[in-house]
């Protein structure tokens, strides 16, 4: 190397370091951009029902994340500035808010009480996806997306992890990936097993979830106590058990990788039927009561009858992650 090149390089390196330092300082001293200030708008009054939602802004995702309770068509803010959630759920006085840590670089779940005050925080190992709390508030279930690290040039395929947590203590109890799975009475296991979208039965021990492996998306029925699951049928994602425990609302993949239709299946027969919603919906549906479902298309919240009749009705604008507070 000619010493001229060396000098150019040193000068360039110094410039880069100064430039980087200056930009970081400018960014650090500038106004903080972690603001969550979106507010949903009620579009229809559902009598006798309270719905908890996460607010989103149609223009600026940085405003997303606040939690509101909508009571008879009145939007009431509850979470103050304390909770900024990607996904929220609540039952029996205990809620889960999956979001980003204050540092802005880590994912955390906050367990909050009936007044929406944070009680526990749990560090998450990936991006928030689904959250559920059992009807009695005993267990919580959280699904996160884990993107493979690219160390050594190898990358784990895109995967999910689902944790069961003790809502009283905020301790993670176990991970569905470690549960024993059976199919047709025989042990069932593969390296690409992914679980997501837990829904609890009334006894809070029994649950349903999705098991993804290869091209299959199995509905599994499990027991938290026994740490086990068994496969019921294929083609069911993000199950949601009806309050009377007889049916499961779910999303069903159509053709392409990321398009779904909402359907409802009867647990007695394992037969399913479609709904009036004809758009692709990527959500874990919530039962408003035994006859009606609520869900979000990522921007607004809709209600649709579970029997396949009627029409989807927009009930809230600028909201996602609906939780029915009435039937609990």
């Amino acid at each position: 190397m000619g010493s001229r090149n060396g000098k150019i390089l040193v000068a360039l390196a110094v410039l880069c370091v100064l430039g980087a330092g200056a930009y970081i300082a400018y960014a650090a001293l500038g106004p903080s951009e972690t603001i969550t200030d979106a507010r949903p708008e009620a579009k229809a009054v559902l009598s006798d029902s309270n719905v908890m939602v996460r607010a989103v802004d149609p223009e600026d995702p940085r405003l997303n994340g606040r939690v509101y309770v909508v009571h008879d068509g009145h939007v009431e803010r509850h979470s103050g500035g304390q909770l900024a959630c990607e996904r929220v759920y609540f039952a029996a006085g205990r809620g889960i808010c999956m979001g980003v840590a204050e540092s802005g670089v880590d994912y955390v779940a906050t367990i909050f009480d009936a007044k929406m005050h944070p009680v526990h925080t749990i560090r998450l190992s990936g991006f928030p996806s689904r959250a559920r709390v059992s009807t009695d508030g005993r267990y919580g279930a959280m699904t996160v997306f884990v993107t493979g690290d690219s160390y050594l040039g190898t990358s784990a395929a895109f995967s999910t992890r689902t944790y069961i947590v003790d809502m009283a203590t905020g301790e993670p109890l176990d991970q569905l990936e470690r549960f024993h799975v059976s199919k047709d009475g025989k042990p069932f296991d593969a390296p690409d097993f992914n679980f997501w979208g837990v829904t609890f039965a009334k006894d809070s021990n029994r649950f349903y979830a999705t098991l993804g492996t290869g091209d299959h998306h199995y509905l599994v029925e499990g027991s938290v106590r026994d740490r086990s699951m068994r496969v019921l049928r294929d083609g069911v994602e993000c199950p949601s058990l009806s309050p009377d425990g007889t049916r499961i609302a779910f999303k069903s993949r159509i053709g392409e990788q990321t398009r779904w239709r909402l359907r409802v299946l009867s647990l007695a027969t394992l037969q399913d039927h479609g709904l009036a919603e004809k758009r692709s919906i990527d959500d874990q549906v919530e039962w408003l009561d035994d006859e009606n479902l609520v869900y979000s298309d990522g921007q607004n919240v809709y209600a649709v009858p579970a029997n396949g009749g009627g029409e989807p009705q927009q009930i809230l604008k600028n909201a996602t992650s609906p939780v029915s507070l009435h039937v609990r």
Partner: protein
Amino acid sequence: MYQVEASKALLKPKLWARRSARLNVPRNVVMLGMVSMLTDVSSEMVATILPLYLVFSLGASPLALGAIDGTYRGAAALVQVASGFAADRWRKPKEVAGAGYGISAVGKVALVAAGNTIGGIGAIVAFDRIGKGIRTAPRDALISLSSSKAGLATAFGVHRAMDSAGAMLGPLIAFGILLAAPARFDAVFVVSTLFAILGVAVLILTVQGKPKRAPREGNAPSLRAAAGLVKDRRFALLLVAATVLSLTSVSDAMLYVGLQRKIDFAPAVFPLLYVITAVAFMGLAIPVGQLADRVGRVPVLLAGYALLFIVYGALLMSSLGYGLLVLCLLGLGGYFAATEGVLAAIAGALLPEDLQASGLGMLTTVVSIGNLLSSLVFGALWLELGLRNAVLVFGAGLALAIVAAVPLLLRSQRAPVHG
């Protein structure tokens, strides 16, 4: 030979300079290591925060990124063979590698300027992958051509150690910036761009395009000559050995999934598995490379695969304590250190000077396709027969592959009959 002291301006710590001098690593190799390190810092900074950025600034699902990434991975593997040949054909490994590094750097600039749509980010991820595919073979050829044949494994070890150091530093720097300036992803992109530009600058300004072993006379090799490499007996033997070994080697990602079933439940542990392995790889790459140059590359390569065989054994145990787990991960790091750069060194020593990039490109492609296939087969066996039986099958396969590779590799080391 260029010594590392010549570049004191860049390598401030004296300790490192002295160590490298003792290692006798050509300056060109250290500079190429520096280029890789800066580029990896740049790429990993962005890769780490991209899921966060997608959601917080674009309101998109991280699923979108998974789909984008998978699509271009295959394309990058094929680009590798073509760019290797192009580098040989034009006798311009530095320029072709530079184009690869440059494409990635341009992608970073584009991220700062226009990284606010999913399509834009998809294109940038594609740029990064293709850039990586283009630069790998000519860069390895430059490392090989810059080194004496006796010091090849050490040279590749130094490069791989610096490369993985960059991959580890990147995420730390990105998180550091976001801690100082929460949610200011633009700051991460700007700093990443500066690292990428600096990487290209180090390449242009300090790396010798025609290092000492580079061919200077004669005709540029034809496509036929490059394709004829597979008929070169020594290289063909090496390719067959590498294929057999890679077909029985399960990817580390798959091993982590298996190991995770054997350890006590703790959500925070999983990401650490990668880190421990990467640190072990980084720390062992240079000493293992030196060892390979001293005692022979073939035994060290085979010992690496033997380490992998032992790690398979851990998957047969009903449960693993944390002590054994860490040993396994160190073993895995050792396996990478003893195979990654050493295999390239073996190839570099027997490939003709004018076809280094083509040959190294072919070898890397064969190995990565072999690893991909083996992971698919391992996954299918796991599903059909269970983890235990899948490991038994692959353990037996790897043992056979090692035994079969011994004569193949030893014969590939014999002096050619002609030339």
